[in-house]
């Protein structure tokens, strides 16, 4: 079997007495969507932070394409091929759609220290950025400021920027949040597009979307993975039903 693209081994992180991440291991294999679900406060955001490099673990390892990236910061992990999006979609609001995408292309190319050559009219940069913007269906909105976009459009731009990194793995933090039924359908199509580029670790609250999209599911409760496996197996798991699905239904 080939080595997983993303390999998380026994991560630990405690904030004081709270074990936010308590021995988490998971893998992301080529060509799959691996969904990470869990109730509020389960430690999903902490885990994403540890994987993306904004948080440092107390113990454990994160490997990307066989390379240990645990000691790298967020920027270095992005350059190593990890593209993440944020739960609250965050872009540079005063820049246009195209400029945001150009920022991503410039970041991916690892050459931001060019001071005098114009970037905004650099055909190579504009062309590549335009391509990514078009792929998420925002071609007609490229001159609009990111801050003026509708919620769903921001999500799409966020994905375009992740795509622009030409990553080895995507880590998407609740891309369906606040999208509504139409938006969620649209997002499903986009996630399919992303999946063709690189495998996706999908942290998601929307159960229907997860069951529809994911190849494998891991369930995080109180900082631990309590179940992991194919969709049907996890759905049938008694402990999962009690810890998570049941709560959801009661809520």
């Amino acid at each position: 079997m080939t080595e997983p693209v993303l390999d998380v081994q026994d991560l630990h992180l405690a904030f004081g007495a709270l074990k936010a991440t308590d021995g988490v291991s998971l893998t992301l294999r080529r060509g799959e969507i691996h969904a990470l679900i869990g109730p509020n406060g389960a430690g999903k955001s902490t885990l994403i932070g540890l994987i993306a490099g904004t948080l440092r673990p107390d113990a454990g390892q994160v490997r990307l394409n066989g390379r240990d990236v645990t000691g790298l910061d967020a920027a270095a992990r992005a350059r190593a091929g990890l593209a993440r999006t944020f739960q609250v979609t965050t872009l540079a609001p005063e820049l246009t759609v195209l400029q945001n995408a150009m920022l991503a292309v410039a970041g991916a190319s690892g050459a931001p220290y060019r001071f005098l050559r114009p970037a905004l009219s650099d055909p190579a940069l504009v062309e590549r950025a335009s391509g990514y913007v078009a792929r998420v269906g925002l071609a007609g909105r490229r001159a609009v400021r990111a801050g003026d976009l509708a919620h769903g459009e921001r999500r799409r731009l966020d994905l375009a920027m992740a795509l622009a990194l030409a990553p080895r793995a995507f880590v998407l933090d609740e891309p369906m949040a606040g999208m509504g039924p139409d938006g969620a359908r649209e997002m499903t199509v986009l996630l399919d597009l992303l999946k063709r580029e690189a495998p996706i670790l999908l942290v998601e609250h929307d159960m229907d979307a997860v069951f529809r999209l994911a190849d494998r599911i891991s369930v995080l409760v109180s900082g631990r993975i309590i179940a992991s496996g194919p969709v049907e197996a996890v759905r049938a798991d008694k402990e999962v039903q009690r810890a998570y699905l049941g709560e959801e239904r009661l809520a």
Partner: protein
Amino acid sequence: MRREPLLNALILLALLAVPLAAQALDEPFLVTLATKAAILALAGVGLNLALGLGGMVSLGHAAFFGIGGYAMAVLAAPVQAYEPLMTWPMDLPGTKSMPAIWLAAMAAGALAALVIGALSLRTGGVYFIMITLAFAQMLYYFAVSWPAYGGEDGISIYVRNGFPGLDTLDPLQFFGLCLGVLLLALGAMHLIARSRFGLALDGARQNPERVAALGLRPARLKLIAFVVSGAVTALAGALFADLNRFVSPSMLHWQTSGEIMVFVILGGAGRLFGPVAGAAIFVLLEHLLGGISDYWKLFLGLALLGIVLFARGGLIGALAGRAVAHD
């Protein structure tokens, strides 16, 4: 819809027309005022890169302005005293040549900005403001107690330094030189703002976390911008010292930092000509109102209050609207 370039051209034209008219009317003092406006604008152009594009609210740019001024004094004072600049580790004479002084001023300003920036950028928000302020005040008190250069009284450089091919004692020629430097700096800022670095810095100001997730390092981008910013403001300091033919610790005082910041915010932070408009208005108000009342800064304060409350893009923003991004 592209009013900003037109407005910029008008500002530039006014800055050029005033001294020419003043010369024709035999009012050399007005030429000096325009020169002062151009130099202060240059100081603002430096801060604008850090504050406007980089989002670093530095209340310590007087440090770089003063370092530029003292760089001039350190190099030029030995010449008028018929002494060498140093004899150890090697013999080095002082200089009265502006290009050499400018290089030294910018290098010193950049070095100071590297040290101050590297330490200050570990913090953010109010702490960044306070730490930059503290560094500038440290240098201020150092200068006050530095007897070699006049301490509190400062030091006079009796003859203005020279520039090849120009008579710098002629007010109009010195003005032209300062305007030329200002234009070069504006040109460089225009290019930087549109370069990859400018785009990345703009992103780092608006959303450092997202920019880091794109593989860029916000802290490093900001530090580089801070260093360039310090060098430009130091160059302005060297010119300002040459304008007055006098350097004193007041150049390093935090009030100077505040004034440079006022130029930028009054004119429009992040707008290319913002500091030019701001500095011109500052000098104009000082001249017009300063003669009427000692409390002219009250009116400046009111103008600043109005701009901050009602026109977030400063004067340029109020007159030209939002910055036009691209096609």
